[in-house]
């Protein structure tokens, strides 16, 4: 399963890139699974996404909750709470 991952604000800074394409194991079925998988890779993702209470997620450019499913070819974005306006 290949996914497009996108990062913004201080999450982008901590991950060290604004986007990447990643091959994922088949047992990553939800946003929550995806964050757990990324955090298990190394400390960089752990520092960026480990505190789920301050991480917001969009799948295919729509806000979703942690239990939202992720599937092949989705664009998944991680960012802190928004501060526009």
């Amino acid at each position, binding site marked *: 399963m290949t996914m497009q991952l*996108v990062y*913004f*604000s*201080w999450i982008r800074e901590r991950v060290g890139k604004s986007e990447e394409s990643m091959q994922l194991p088949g047992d990553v079925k939800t946003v929550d699974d995806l964050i757990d998988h990324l955090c298990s890779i190394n400390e960089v993702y752990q520092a960026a996404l480990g505190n789920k209470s301050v991480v917001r997620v*969009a799948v295919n*450019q*729509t*806000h979703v909750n942690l239990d939202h499913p992720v599937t092949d070819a989705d664009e998944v*974005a991680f*960012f*802190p*709470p*928004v*501060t*526009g*306006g």
Partner: protein
Amino acid sequence: MARISVQREDFQIADEIAALRGDRTDMGAIVTFTGTVRDITGELKAMTLEHYPGMTEAELGRVADEAEKRWPLVGCRVIHRYGRLEPGDNIVLVITMSAHRHAAFEAADFLMDFLKSRAPFWKMEETDNGGQWVDAKESDSDALKRWD
């Protein structure tokens, strides 16, 4: 003209109102909200707005659709800037037009509340001590409950 714009450039409020009005005479109320870069302490050098191209336009469009569903608007316009802005610069413009003043006021207020907690923008403040990401305010997510 697009109802939603996400742009680096500044906007001219009078031009935007004129374009939205056209030669219509069936509205009696026009409300605008302009958000500007605020510098309370005098230490802010600049504010940089990052956003999520594509999602920003989609999200602002959804918020505008919702406002038009809830109130009888004859016009609705949202412009949000991104990039590096300085104190006093314009950030966002919302215009609502309606036959009724309360509809125009409420719709503009609603648009700003939803934009603040839904539109994917992030502000970084730059002072002599470097840059710092602005934290989201609890009060902005609380404000949404007014519209349940």
